[in-house]
Each structure stands twice: as C-alpha cells, then as structure tokens.
C-alpha cells in the first residue's frame, strides 16, 4: 500500500466523520437560555417534550449520579443484586440493612416509579407489622412515607407518587388496626410534621390545630390532581379518573367520620360533614370525568338533569306519532311471532313453573321483546322520519351517557356518600353517635342503668338508656335514609348492639320485640355476614315499623278511650320504672287480650308490589 493510498483513505474517513457530524449536531444541539428562540436540536426537544431530562424530572442528586457512573453501565445488574439482597434482609429480619439497601436501589434507579411505590408499601405495610410494639410499627409506616417523599423529590411531576402518599397517610395511619395509636403518635410527631412539603400548614390542621393524617392525605391527593391537570404532570395516574378524583373528598369524609368516632360531636363535626358533602356533590360531582370511551365526559351529579332531558326527549318522540303505543305493541307482536316454539313456550310459562333452562331463555326473550324508541322511529312515516331519526340518535347518546353515569356512580358508591354526608349532619345522627359513644364508655365502667352524678347530684342515664336512645335515633335516620343500611359501616353498629344485649343480659332482660334496630340483626347473620339485599330488607323493615307504630297508637287510643268497657275496670298500663308498681293483672294490656296473636313474621311479609306507605298490612298485631 502506497503512502498516497493511505493518505486518501484518511481523507475519506475524515470527510465521512465530518459529514456525519452535521446531522448529529442538528439532532443533539442543546437549547439556548431562551428556549423559545433557541429550541435546540431534536433530541433536546424530545427530551423536554417527554419530561426526560434530569432537571425536569426532579432534583439532581450527586450521590445518585456518582453511583450510576460507578456501576459502569451495569446499573441493571447492580439493582438486581441489591433487590435480591433486600429480599434476603427482609427474610432474615435485618430491617436496618433492608432499609439501607432500598436507599441504594433508589439511588441507582431514581426515576423507576414502581420501585418507590413498591418498596414504600413494603416498609409501611409489610415490615411495620413484623414488630410487636406499635411505636415501632408507626416508625416503619413513617419510613415508608419518608421513602415516598424522597421519591417525589426525584420525580416532582409524577402523579402516582403524590397519590400514593395521600393513600398511605390517610389509610395506613387512619384505617389500620392500630389507628388510634397511630393517629395519637402522628399528632404529636413534630419532627415528622417538619418534613411535610407544605408551605401553609393550615389546610392540614384539624379543628384543634393539630396536624391530621386524613387532611394531610387530602392535600397530597389534591397535589396529585393539580399535577394531573398540569401539562408537566405525568400522564399515568395509576387509577381510573372516577376513583382518582374522588379521593380528596373521601379523605374529607374519612376525617369527619374519624373525629366523630373519636368523640367530637360539636358544630365542628357537623360543619365538617357539611363541607365534605359539598365537596362530594359539587367539587367532585360536578367535575367532568373522562370515561373509558374516548371523548365522553360525564358529571356524576348530573344524573337527574340527564334523566329529565331523556324524559323530555321521549315525550317529544312519542308526541310525533298519532298512536305511539299501538305501533310499539305492533312491533312487539312481530318480535313475539318471530320467536321459536321453544322460546315461546318458555316465555309463556308462569315464572315459577320454568325450569333452569327456561329461566335463561325467558330472560333473553324478554330482553329481545323490548321495543326501543329508535325501533319505533324506524317505522315512522317518511315525513317525520328524519326528525325522528335525529331525536332517536340524541336519545341513544343520552341513554348511553346515563348508563355511564349510573355505572360510574356505583363504582364510587356516589349516592351512599352523598346521603351519608346529609344524614350525618342531622340532629338525630349526632345524638345517636354521641349516645352510643357515651354508652360504650359507661358500659366499660359497668354503669348499666341510671345513676346519680356524685358532683351535680343529677340523675343521669346509664349505658342501657343511652343505647336505647341512640338506637332510636339511628332507626329514625335509617328510615329517612334507607340507603345508609346498604353499607359496611352498618356492621359497626353490630358491636354496640352486642354490647347492648350484654347489658340487657346482665340486667336479666331480653331484647325487646320492638327493638329499634332489629333490621340490623336481620341484615347480618350471627357471624356478621350480610344475609341479603339490604334495600329489600329495609323496605320490609319500614313496613313493619309502621305497623308497630300503628299498634302502639291503637293501644294508646284503646287505653284512653273512655267508652272502652275494659278501661272502666282497670287502670291504664303503666310504664315500667315508674314509682307505681305495674299492675299484676295482665288483662290491662290489650296485647294480652288478643286470642290469636300473630307473630312479627306475619307483618314481615308484605305483598311485593304493594306500597307500604299506602297499603299497610292488615291487621297490625304483635305477640
């Protein structure tokens, strides 16, 4: 090879390098100080658009960077080994080493969001319960939270980390078995409060000025929402929007619930429920929530309005036809004629005579026989068809929207929480909660019946009276808001009913037949499991309570009726506990005079179609 050839080759190489440098410089040109005027090369723009540069993700940590460099590109391997080590430390209960390794992992891969979430959960939920001492447990819950907070420093725009923080603050501290202790420790933990990244602490302070975990959780959820709505926030939320947006309000609800549970029955509690209700029905209920269908947004609180729109539309459609119902019936008949013999046979049979297969067939036939407005419109005369079709399309869209609202409302139990917020503000509910709280305390102190306050010398109700008063108020609330019965919170009452029964047992009394919360006992079996549809039970219960009320009225009327021959002979029935001893004669009680007393179960079985308000079961009697 001559020197010339070698020289030419070098020139060619240099030229190729120079040529390649041109696109490279175009691609990787950095942006200037003023990004608008000097947006930089393609790589820089892509990095900015996708929030991939270190500084846009969060803090740049020198230790993290050195560690990444020190692994010489073997970061993945190093992380895997550390992950393995962490598992081993966890298995062998080397908790401090475990935490130290987790720190190292996060330094190596600070932008791997799932690592932060998983390992924070591991510390707060899995490691914490390995300790017997609740203070250690609390310490490890905090460690998990600390880990998440550190994660947010490296990933300032990640929605999931903020959301997770809200969750752990709220639910781990406020819902776990040790919630009383955790909340107590959290309120006192000034050092931990100092780490909270809030400039203004007022929104997280409760009515006494203490930092409350639910309110802290709420703030983090609000931050997550603010991020999700800002262009720089991550696109992945880790939740469906309907749940994602519900959380801040749920924290307000949980906060209200907790302060009442802890014995706060003043205006603070009602105000808090009021505010929670407002947030639920206005802030959340009126929020445009994206559905699983592209571009379809719904408002959970707009159910009534949409239904009204639908009714108007249907009215318009039906008004277009001279005889809409006849046409609908005609279509139905056509569909019926098109059925196979087997289908017709199954459908025509009375429901209780169908076998399993026929039940299925009949159900599907019923669905098919339904005539929708759109189908009737198809048969409309030409002159009104166009308008009809337009309205039909609108109706379909509206139906679909209503369907979505309905199903999304059921996901978050919208109606229940709206009702609960209302119900909790009522005087009856506040009184019920106060009485049950006081009753539980007196029960603990074994003060079962009325007692005299040694300081004020006043007569005060004992556990029994307070329970009874509480249950009466609860019953009244449930009657007004039957939807309240269909929720797990009702189970909490079971504990108090059990205590009440114990109180009665100690006083050698039985649970009264007209016990106000018998419905609760019917909803749950002896093991605390739900027995059936609470709504259905609630209906029946309302009927029975009405019946009992009528009996009482009847009794009172009968007792006060001077024309009643029985009253001439005996005095009216006395209330037990009065100074005057109850009469020995049982004949004074009209209930005992009835020759054939039907059982309560008799009034338990109203006709399914009958309206309890208008057709009370006859004759209202009890044992």
């Amino acid at each position, binding site marked *: 090879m001559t020197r010339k050839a070698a020289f030419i080759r070098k020139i060619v190489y240099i030229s190729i390098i120079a040529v390649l440098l041109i696109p490279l410089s175009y691609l990787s040109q950095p942006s200037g100080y003023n990004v608008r005027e000097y947006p930089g090369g393609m790589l820089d723009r892509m990095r900015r658009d996708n929030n991939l540069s270190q500084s846009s993700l969060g803090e740049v940590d*020198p*230790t993290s960077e*050195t*560690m990444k460099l020190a692994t010489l590109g073997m970061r993945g391997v190093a992380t895997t080994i550390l992950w393995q080590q962490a598992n081993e430390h966890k*298995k*062998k*209960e*080397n*908790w*401090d*080493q475990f*935490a*130290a390794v987790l*720190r*190292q992992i996060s*330094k190596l891969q600070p932008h791997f969001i799932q690592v932060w979430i998983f390992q924070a959960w591991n510390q707060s939920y899995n490691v914490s319960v390995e*300790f*017997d*001492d*609740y203070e*250690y447990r609390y*310490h490890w819950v905090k*460690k998990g939270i*600390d880990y998440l907070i550190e994660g947010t420093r490296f990933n300032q725009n990640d929605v999931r980390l903020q959301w997770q923080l809200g969750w752990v603050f709220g639910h781990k501290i406020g819902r776990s*078995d*040790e919630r009383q*202790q955790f909340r107590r420790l959290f309120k006192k933990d000034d*050092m931990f409060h100092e780490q909270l990244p809030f400039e203004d602490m007022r929104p997280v302070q409760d009515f006494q000025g203490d930092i409350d975990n639910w309110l802290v959780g709420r703030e983090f959820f609000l931050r997550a929402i603010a991020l999700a709505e800002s262009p720089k926030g991550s696109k992945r939320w880790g939740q469906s929007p309907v749940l994602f947006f519900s959380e801040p309000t749920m924290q307000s609800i949980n906060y209200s619930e907790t302060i009442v549970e802890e014995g706060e029955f003043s205006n603070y509690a009602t105000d808090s429920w009021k505010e929670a209700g407002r947030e639920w029905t206005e802030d959340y209920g009126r929020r445009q929530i994206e559905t699983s269908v592209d571009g379809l947004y719904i408002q959970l609180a707009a159910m009534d309005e949409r239904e009204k729109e639908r009714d108007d539309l249907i009215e318009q459609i039906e008004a277009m036809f001279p005889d809409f119902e006849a046409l609908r019936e005609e279509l139905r008949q056509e569909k019926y004629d098109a059925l196979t013999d087997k289908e017709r046979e199954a459908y025509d049979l009375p429901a209780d005579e169908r076998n399993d297969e026929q039940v299925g067939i009949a159900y599907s036939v019923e669905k098919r026989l339904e005539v929708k407005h759109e189908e009737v419109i198809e048969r409309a005369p030409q002159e009104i068809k166009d308008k009809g079709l337009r309205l039909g399309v609108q109706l379909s869209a509206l139906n679909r929207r209503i369907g979505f609202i309905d199903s999304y409302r059921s996901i978050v139990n919208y109606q229940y929480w709206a009702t609960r917020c209302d119900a909790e503000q009522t005087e009856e509910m506040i009184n019920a909660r106060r009485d049950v709280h006081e009753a539980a305390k007196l029960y603990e102190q074994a003060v079962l019946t009325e007692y005299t306050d040694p300081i004020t010398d006043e007569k005060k109700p004992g556990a029994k009276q307070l329970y009874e008063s509480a249950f009466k108020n609860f019953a009244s609330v449930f009657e007004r808001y039957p939807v309240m019965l269909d929720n797990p919170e009702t189970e909490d009452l079971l504990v108090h009913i059990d205590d009440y029964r114990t109180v009665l047992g100690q006083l050698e009394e039985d649970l009264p037949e007209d016990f106000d919360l018998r419905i609760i006992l019917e909803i749950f079996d002896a093991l605390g499991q739900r027995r059936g549809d609470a709504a259905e039970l609630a209906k029946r219960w309302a009927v029975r309570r009405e019946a009992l009320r009528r009996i009482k009225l009847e009794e009172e009327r009968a007792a006060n009726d001077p024309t009643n021959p029985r009253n001439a002979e005996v005095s009216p029935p006395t209330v037990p506990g009065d100074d005057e001893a109850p009469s020995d004669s049982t004949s004074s009680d009209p209930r005992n005079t009835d020759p054939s007393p039907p059982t309560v179960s008799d009034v338990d079985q109203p006709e399914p179609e009958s309206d309890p308000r208008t057709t009370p079961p006859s004759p209202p009697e009890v044992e």
Partner: protein
Amino acid sequence: MTLEQEVLTLSQWLFGVPASGSTPGHFGVLWAFALVLVALVVVVLFVAYLAFAMQYGPGEGFLRVGRMLRIAWTDLASISPRRIFAMTWLAFQEAIRMRVLVAFGVFVFVMLFASWYLDVKTDKPAQLYMGVVLGWTNLLVLILALFLSSFSLPNDIKNRTIYTVVTKPVRLGEVILGRMIGFTLIGTLILAIMCISSYIFVWRGLSHSHRLAADNEGIPELTEDPTIEDEDGHHGWSGLTSESDYHRHTAYINPDGTGYTDVQKGHRHQIFNVNGLSKPIADITESARTLRRAQEATEGDIDPAYSRQIFRRVIETSSRLVGESQTAAGRSQGEAKQLYRDLASTMEDVQTAAEAKKLDATIDKLCQAQAIVNDVAIARFVIGPPIDQLRARMPQYGRLSFLDRAGLPTDKGVNVGNEWTYRSYIEGGTGAAAIWTFENITPDRFSPDNPEFEEGVPLDLTLRVFRTYKGDIEKGILGRIQVIEALSEEDVKAGKQPLVSEPQIFYAQEFTADRKHIPYKIDARDKGGAGSLQPDLNLFEDFAHDGRLIVRIQCEDRAQYFGAAKPDVYVWTGNNYFFVNFAKGYCTIWFQMVLVICFGVLFSTFLSGPVAMLATAMSYVTGYFAQFISDVTSGELEGGGPLESMIRLFYQKNTVSDLGEGASTTAVYGMDSIMLGIMTLFSYLMPDYGNLQTSSFVAEGYNIPPELMTQHMLTTLAYFLVVAALGYMVFKSREVAA
C-alpha cells in the same frame, strides 16, 4: 444478634462434635487438615514420580523423588531468618515501588465521601458506619493483596530480575517466604493505618450532642414525672431533648439531679448536672408561667387578688430557693444575701405594678425576678456524648432445648409460617417452654460486690413475638422467666423433682437486648414448682449446682407465641473495650489478606501475572461461596449448575421449570455435575472466606468470641504453611525444569 452458625469451642472445633437430635455434628478440623495434608502429599509425590518416571524411567523416578525430598529437607533445615528478612525487605521495598499506598489514598477518598451515601435516617447508624468502613477496608485490602502477590514474581521472571536474587546464596523457600511475609508486612501497615482512620471516621460520624428542649425564656421544658420517684417519695422530671442527627430523646432526671435519656438509634446519653442544684423547675418559674397563662386566658385582665396570691407564693419560695441554692451551689453568704436583696427589691416592684393593675409591667418585673432565680436556684443540665453506641458486649451463650405444649421435651418449637426457620416458637398459656442451660455461672464470676452484677446475673433477651390475635396492642405480650434447679444425673435417676423459682413476669421487647436479672436470692417452690414456697434461696447454692444455670422462659398469653433461637437469651458477662473489638474485626480482615497473599504468591510461581491474579480471585470467590456451591451441588438451591442456569437465563425459564427431556438436557446435566464436582472439591480446599467475616459482631456491638479469633488464626497459619510449602515445591520444579 443473629448467629446462624454456632461458635464452637476450640476443642469442639479441632476434634469435632457428634450429631445429636436435630443439631448436625461437626467434623474435627484437625482430622480434616490431617486428611487433606496426607492426600496432598500423596498427590504431590505421585505427580512428581510420574513426571520423573516419564523422563527417566520408572526405577530412576523413585530415586529422583527421593532426591527431591532430600533437597527439600535440606532447604527446610537450612532456612535462615536473616535471608528471609532480606527477602522480606526486598518485597517490602518492591511493594512501595509499586505504589501500594495508592490503596490507602483510595480509602481516604472513600471515607471522605462515604457519608454522602449513608442513610442519615437509619435506626442504627453505628451498624451502618461500621459496615461501611469494614466492608470497604476488606475490599481494598484484598484487591491490594491480590495485585501485589500475583504480579510480583511473574514480573521478576519476565524482566529476569529474579536472577539477581536466585544467583545469590538464597534458597527458593526463602524467596517464597520472603515475598509472603514482605507483602503481609506492607498490607499490615496499610491495614493498621486504615483501622485507626476508620475508627476516627466512625467516632466522628456518630458523635453528636443534644440539649434539653427549652422554652423562649431558656428554661428546660421539663415536667414533674411521678413515674420517677426516689426512696423518699420525691418525684423526678422528664422532657424532650433538642433534635440532632434526625432524632431526639426523652430525658429522665432523677430527684437528685442525675439522669439518662431513653434509647434512640441504638444509643442514649447521660445527663449531668452542672451547677450542683437538683431542681430543674423553680416554683417561681411555675408561678410566672401560671400568671402568664392566666393573663393570656383573660386577655390581660387578671383578678388582683389572684395575682397577689401568686406573688406571695413567689416571694416565699424565692427566699427559700435562694437559701437552698446558697449551700447547694457553694455560694458565699455575702453573694446569697446580695442575690436575695436583688430579688426582694424586684419582687416589691412586681407587687407595686400588680397592685396598680399595670399588668405588662408586672409581667416584665416578674420576668426579671425569675431571671435572678433562674440563675441561682434552677438546676442546669448538660447532656453528655452518646453512650452504649460503640460497645462490645460479651455474651455467654447457653444450650437451648424446648418443651412442647404438653410440657414434654421436643427438638424444636412451632414454625409460625416464617420462611426463615432460624427461630422456633413456643405457644403461650401452655406447657411449651424454651429452656437455656448456661455453664460456669459461679459466685466468683458473678458477685453482688461487682457493681455491674449487683442486681443479679444479667440475662439479655431478644425474643420475637408472634400474635395470632390482635389483643391489647398497647401492651406487649407477657412472658415468665423461671430458674430451675440443676439436678445431677443421680438426682434425676432417683426421681428428685427440681426447685423452680417463682416466675419473674415481663413484657417481651423485640429487636433490643432487654436486660433482666436473675437475683441472688430467690423465692422458689420444690417438687418441680408444685410444692411449698421456700423464700430467700441462694442462686448458686440451691439452683446453679456446679455452675449450671437453667432458665426457663414461657409465654403467658394464651394463643400468642414467643420465638427463640439459641443466641436470643444469653448471660451478659460485661463489655469489652470497643476499640479492641474493632481491632479484632480488622484482624479478621488481616487473616483474609494473608490468605490471599499466600495463594497469590503460590499461583504466581507457575502462572503469568494476570492469570495468577485471576486464579487467586477465583480461589477467593470459591472459598467465599463455598456454602453456595455446596447448596447448588446438593440441590438445596434450585436452578442447577453453571450450564443449566445459563440455559435458563437464555430461555428466560425460572429456576424450577422443566427443561424437557432429551440428549442435550442430559449432556447439560452431565457436564454440570462434572463442573460442580470440581467446584465442590476446590471449595473444600480453599479457606472458607465467608466464615472469616466478623464485621457483624463489631457492627452489632458484640465482642468477637476469642474462640472464633483463635480458630481463624489457626486456619490462616495452617494455610500459610501448606501453601508456602506447595509454592516452594512448584517453584522448585520450575527451576528444575528450567
């Protein structure tokens, strides 16, 4: 601390322990060493004979082997310490020339930035610091030893500088020994410097101070604490300290003014009184506070009668306090009088202002009065440096046995579902018990005259708790400790029932060494605990016959469990000096370094530098992962040998999925078993480096047992001798071949 591998006594380690029950036996190291040595000698002689026989014929081969042995003996007999020293010095100088001190530079660099990487919020900072310094020292020193030992001889041979040595009247054995000792010396020097600088690093990193948290007026925020009470019924005080290094303590001050903080992050602090006064809150301060609170509550409008009442109390107490402080703080009578005069005149001002209903002026004057009293009557405290952080507890472990729920002996307790089976669990409220037997618990070791043992024989508990139901979460799980009379075999045969002490009830505390004491005077019942009560029995005379102390621990709460392993209960025999323990930790690094140097020099006698280094590194890895290799070979660890695991990685199959049948799989299994066989053989021959790690003792604050140190030392010595001999032979054979 967790001790998965039991520390054997020297005789057990040397001569072996037979297996008993569920405890595996141990084959005596001495026998193993002798066996390996004999095998090695046979193999070496056989290889030498083969080599000679192939070159000179079978008959001549024998003669040559004999001659070789004679030369070896001559070399051994004529080894000269002077020449070894010369060789050592040469190696030392060479090492310096090779800039080994760079390793120290790297170490200093690491120490400078180590704190960046340490988790500042860790619960046990001492462990973390210790882990870092010991880990880095280990790594750096071993790398240094590796490079130094494997490249030296090959470089000399390659550069032919070896001739300047071998042409001198030096024997090859001396060259080998000289290198080993020389490199060891330089390594020792570096290690010693590292040890001292790490100690300083750890000490500086962990030292911090607190002060008592104070209010705006500088008065410590202490409250009277009825849980602290002296014999006369005086109460002590408690309050928080300031925050430092991400923690703060609760301070407990006794009525006499002395005190301690609680334990946080593995340490506590002693509280010292600096002005000889014992009362941290003067009545006058309290009065001023009350007045201020009253003023705030009524928005400035206080009932003058109420304030007068307070002032009267203030004046009475202030004169008393000044009087008391005069003696306590050693003030002269003149000084005290002057103070009292100042106070009285200020108090007059206070009263005048109060009566004139000038509340702001009243408060100001009261503050002045308070400042005077603060100076003279209120105790001042300082909080000392952290204690119990860097320590070396000396535990004496016992034998552990279990009783099942019926109270009958069993091998182990219940498994509560943990993957890690280190601990066995005993059920509460049943006959289940964990029984520890400690030997040599005698009055001359544990005497009430010794302040450390005045309460009794100290017993540290690190039990685990497992709850099957929540119970009262604010209370721990109750347990009981009982001492059982140690009966002789004759007594047992005679059917004698032991004395059982009345139970000492305790709440189990996890993850901390919970100190209990076995008192010297014990109330007990005879007939195995079912008999009559016998008060004030003597621990040593009535229970610990022949120094054998039997302690039974049971869980009191029904259906709750205690978890226990042998090291979870031990008799605390005192503390060793921390630095000595720290140095012992460095000694084990030194042992490892010596072994690496030996193997490096050995391999460098017949391999080129890089290959010798690789071989030495491999020998370390094989020794370090001996247990892992043994687990893979025995099938205890899933995933198979090198080839199989590689195939699983490649095809992304997990460790237990079936590889399928076929010739290729069979071939893979076959090759793996050969490779694993070789690896196992090597792992048996190499030192168990994994076992030579003692950093966990130092980090967790336990003295490294002397038995363990001796075992490590003997192991190192044995390897040193054998490897030196092997190195000599290989080097000799190369010379012969050359």
